Structure formats: C-alpha cells, structure tokens
C-alpha cells in the first residue's frame, strides 16, 4: 500500500509548481493555469486523506464517510466558475488594452 506521505509529497510538489507559475508568469492565462494546478493539489490531498483516514470506527469495517470527495467536488465546481469568470475578464481586458501581459494592466490608475 502506498503510504499517505507520498500523496502529500506529490501534492506539495504540485502546489509549489503552481505557486512558482503564478508568481513568475507575465501572461494572465498562464497565471490561471497555475491556479488550476494549486486547486488540484488541494484536491489530491482531500481525496487521499478521505481514503486513508475516513472511517468512523477504528477497525476499518464501516464504510468510508465521503466528506473529502464531496469537498473535492465542490472545489472542482468552484474552479470551473473561477476559470470561466477569469477567462472572460482576461478577454475583456484584452479588448481594451490589446495586451495580455500583467504589467500592462493598469486601467484603474488612469
């Protein structure tokens, strides 16, 4: 059986890759891609902890309570909503500023 730490390590790596992308990207779509990676790192942890530590009794006889899976479903729905609104905002800004690079987004300063 795969130890639980390996899922945590995978999720930590995915999270750090997402953080690095969100910090360094100039392109707004690239930043959204990195945010999707971060949300998926959280999801892996939720599902893995739900499988390994999700039973009610200490014997492993009772069925697993699927709280982690339900939360992961919610995270998927919220990620979908976030990326829809984010991409539409990016397209609206692109129409106005003719650029996708974040240093060009200073519409509120003027």
């Amino acid at each position, binding site marked *: *059986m*795969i*130890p*639980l*730490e*390996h899922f*945590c*390590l*995978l999720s*930590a*790596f*995915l999270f*750090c*890759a997402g*953080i*690095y*992308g969100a*910090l*360094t*990207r*100039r*392109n707004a*779509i*690239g930043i959204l*891609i990195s945010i*999707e*990676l971060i949300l*998926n790192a959280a999801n892996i942890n939720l*599902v893995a902890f*739900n*499988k390994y530590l999700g*039973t*009610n009794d200490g014997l*492993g*006889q009772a*069925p*697993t309570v*699927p*709280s982690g*899976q*339900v939360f*992961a*479903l*919610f995270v*998927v*729905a*919220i*990620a*979908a*909503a976030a*990326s*829809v*609104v984010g*991409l*539409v905002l*990016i*397209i609206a800004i*692109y129409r106005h500023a003719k650029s*996708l690079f974040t*240093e060009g987004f200073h519409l509120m300063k003027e």
Partner: protein
Amino acid sequence: MSEMLFYPLAASVCIFAGLAVTQKNVFHCALYLAMVLLSIAGIYFYLDAPFLGVIQILVYVGGIITLFVFAIKLTAHIEDKVIRQTSQQWVPSLMITGILLCVLFRFFSQNPWANPNLGKPTTLAQLGNFLMTNYAVPFEFISLLLLAAMVGAIVIGKVKK
C-alpha cells in the same frame, strides 16, 4: 488496481506540471495542463473515487481546457515564441518556492502517519446520499455560484456598443 500504477501517474503529474509552468508557448501549456489533469484523474481512480475521476475528466479536460484553448485562440499573437513569458522576479520566486518545497518535504518525510485502517470504498449511491443530506445546503449554494458565474461571464464578455 495495481499499486505500482501510482508512481508512473505521480511522475507524469510532476513532469507535466513542471512543463506547464515553464514553457514559453501558452497553447502548449494548456495541453500540458490537460495531461496533468488526466493523470490526476487516474490518481482518483486509484484512490477509490471513480466518480470524482470521471467528473475531473468531464469538467476539467472537457470543459475548462476547452475554455483555455478558446481564450488563447481568441487573444491573438500571444503564442508568439519570441515574447518573454516570465517576469523579472523569477529568481526570488524560484528561491521562495524552493524553500517552501524543502520545508514541506522535510515535514512530510519526518512525520509519517500511523498505520491507516482503510474502510470499505464508498459507492456512488452513498456519495449521492451524503451530498443530498449532510451537504444539501452547500450543494445548493454551489449551484447558485455557478449560475452567478454564468450570468457574470455573459455580462462581462458582452461587447458594448
């Protein structure tokens, strides 16, 4: 499912995630993101969450990646390879991320969890029952949020005459 399937899936998640945040061509990045999400769906299947894996493929790979591809194609000439894609702060960002990764790796490798006792895997009927009883109110709020996001996307994306 075979246990050794996890490590190839995890390796492909790591490789494609690294490519998705470092490649210059944004269209390729979206395709690498699709590969990451497919590998994560495989990990969900391994973790006895087949419904979540199917939802991951349907919503993410079928929906969100399509949206990303449309957004990249609608905003022309951004996949030009000569344009620099990383900001000037990439060195401190890399240092911060590396330090965070080292701290997390040390923490997880030094604090192993006690022997877990696996319960029976959840069936889809149990999951649906749980979703409609214990989490009924958050479920309704999610549908409200999706409706608000849809209406907001239409309003923001409309071309003003």
